[in-house]
C-alpha cells in the first residue's frame, strides 16, 4: 500500500503529534499584542469607574477553545477596572457556557466582593429576531430582559437603575462565532451610537477587518492569538498564551508540508515534461 505524503493518514498523526508535543512541552514565546487588540484594551482601560459594558456571549461550545479564554480575559479586565458588566447571548446553545464563565470569574478571590445584579449580571438567552431584540434593548433594556438567567427580576436590580437602555451602555463587545457582529453593528453600534468591538474566531477575523477599517468597531480580538494578546496585556497568561506554541508549531508544519509538496509537484511536472519530449 502506497501512502502519499498528502494522505490524511500521514498528515493527521503528524498534526496530532505536533499538538501533543507542543502542549506537553510548551516554549514561552515573546508575544507582541496586535494593534486591534490593544485598541480594545485601551478603550476599556480609559472607561471611568462604574461604566456599563455589555458582553454578548454569542457562541456555542464548539468555539470554546478560542472564545472562552477571550471572554474570561475581557470580563476580568472589566471587573478589575470596577466597570459594571451586563452579559447576554443570542445563541441558545451557549447560554449555560456564558453563565459558567461569569460564575467562575466572579468566584475568583479578587472579585468575591462583586455582587450579582449590582456589579455584573448575566441575562442569558433572548429568543426572537435579533434585530428586533436589539432595537427593543435600545428602547428599554430591563423590559426586554424581564428576568436574568437565574429568574431574578431585572427591574429591581441596582445595575439597571441608570442603565435603562442600550443607549446607556458605554461599551459593547460581541464575542461571536457566527454572523451576530453584523447585526450588532447595524442595530446596536450604528443605530444607538454605542462604541463597540468584536471578539471572534480566527476564521471570522478577515471579515471583521472590514468593520474595523470602516470604524464601525474600534477594536478586534480574533482567534486564540487575540485571546493570548489580551492575556499578555492583562499580565495574566492563561489558556490563550498556553495555546500559542501549539499554534506556531502547526502553522510552521503546514508551511513546511506545503513547500515539500510543491517541490515534489514541480519535480513531477518537470519529469513528465521530459518524458513527453522524449516520446515526441
Amino acid at each position, binding site marked *: 500500500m502506497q501512502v502519499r*505524503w*498528502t494522505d*490524511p493518514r500521514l*498528515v*493527521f498523526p503528524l*498534526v496530532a503529534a505536533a499538538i501533543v508535543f507542543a502542549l506537553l512541552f510548551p516554549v514561552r*514565546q*515573546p*508575544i*507582541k499584542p*496586535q*494593534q486591534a487588540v490593544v485598541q480594545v484594551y485601551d478603550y476599556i482601560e480609559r472607561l471611568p469607574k462604574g461604566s456599563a459594558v455589555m458582553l454578548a456571549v454569542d457562541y*456555542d*461550545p*464548539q468555539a*470554546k*477553545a478560542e472564545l472562552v479564554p477571550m471572554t474570561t480575559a475581557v470580563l476580568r479586565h472589566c471587573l478589575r477596572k470596577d466597570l459594571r458588566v451586563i452579559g447576554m447571548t443570542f445563541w441558545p*446553545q451557549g447560554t*449555560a*457556557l456564558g453563565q*459558567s464563565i461569569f*460564575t467562575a470569574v466572579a468566584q475568583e478571590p479578587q472579585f468575591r466582593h462583586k455582587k450579582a445584579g449590582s456589579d455584573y449580571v448575566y441575562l442569558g438567552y433572548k*429568543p*426572537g*429576531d435579533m*434585530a*428586533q431584540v436589539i*432595537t*427593543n434593548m435600545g*428602547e*428599554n433594556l430591563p*423590559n426586554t430582559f424581564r428576568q436574568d*438567567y*437565574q*429568574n431574578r427580576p431585572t427591574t429591581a436590580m441596582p445595575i439597571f437603575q441608570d442603565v435603562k437602555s442600550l443607549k446607556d451602555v458605554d461599551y459593547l463587545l460581541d464575542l461571536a462565532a457566527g454572523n451576530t457582529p453584523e447585526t450588532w453593528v447595524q*442595530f446596536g453600534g450604528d443605530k444607538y451610537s454605542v462604541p463597540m468591538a468584536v471578539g471572534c474566531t480566527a476564521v471570522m477575523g*478577515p*471579515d471583521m*477587518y*472590514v468593520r*474595523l*477599517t470602516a470604524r464601525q468597531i474600534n477594536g478586534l480580538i480574533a*482567534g486564540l*492569538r487575540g485571546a*493570548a494578546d489580551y492575556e499578555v496585556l492583562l499580565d495574566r497568561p492563561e489558556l490563550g498564551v498556553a495555546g*500559542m506554541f501549539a499554534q*506556531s*508549531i*502547526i*502553522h*510552521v*508544519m*503546514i*508551511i513546511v*508540508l*506545503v513547500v515539500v*509538496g*510543491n517541490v515534489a*509537484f*514541480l519535480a513531477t511536472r518537470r519529469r513528465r515534461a521530459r518524458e513527453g519530449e522524449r516520446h515526441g
Partner: protein
Amino acid sequence: MRVPPGQTAMRAIKLTIPLLLALLFGLFGFGIHYVPHPWASDTKEFISLWVRVIGGIAWILGAYGLIHLHTGRIQKKQSGWGYSVFFFIGLALMAGTAFYNDARWFWNAQAQGGVYNYLNNALFVSTGATMFSLLGFFIPSAAVRTFRARSFEATLLLITAAVVMLGMVPLGQMVSGYLPGAAEWIMLVPNTAAKRAIMLGVSLGVIATSLRLIFGLERSYLGGGE
C-alpha cells in the same frame, strides 16, 4: 373582452391580495425600524413575541421530525441504526434532566451545579469543542493538497497564505520583525478591499431583490410561473 366573475375573484386571491400584502408588510417592516416612537417599539416587541411563538412551534416540529426519522431507521434496521439509539438516549437524558432540574422542575431557573449542568459541561461542551477541533486536522490536510504553485495567481496565494500564517503567530515575530506587519497589511488592505467589494455587491443585490419583492416586480414566490 369580459373576464368571468369567478376568474376575477381567483386572480385577486392568487395575485392581487398577496402582492398587496407583500407591499404592506414590506413597507411596514422596513419603516418600523426607523420610527423612534413607543408605538413602534411595542409593535416590534409584539412581532418578536409572534416570532418566538412560531419558533417554539418549529422546535416541536423539528423534534417530531427527528424522532420520526430515527424511529423509522431503528424499525427498518437501516445501516447505522445503532446511532439512532444513541439519539434517543441523548434526547431522554438531556430533556429528562432539564425538565427534572434537580427536583426543582423546569418552571424554575436551572439549578447551578445540577445534573443537567454537569451533562452540559461534561458532554455537550466537550463533544462540541472536540468536533470543532477536528478543523485543526482538516485544514492542514486540505492546505497540503490544494496549495500548489500551478500558476502565477496560485503562487501569489500560496506566498500570501504563508506570510499571514507566520505573521499571525509569535514564532513569525521571532523569525522576522517585518512578518507581523506584512500579515497585518494583507488583512487590512487587500483582504478588506476584496471583502468590501463582495459585501457591496451582495448588499446591492439584497436591496434590489427586496425592492422588487415589495413592489411586486418579483413574483416567482407566488408560483404558477406568472
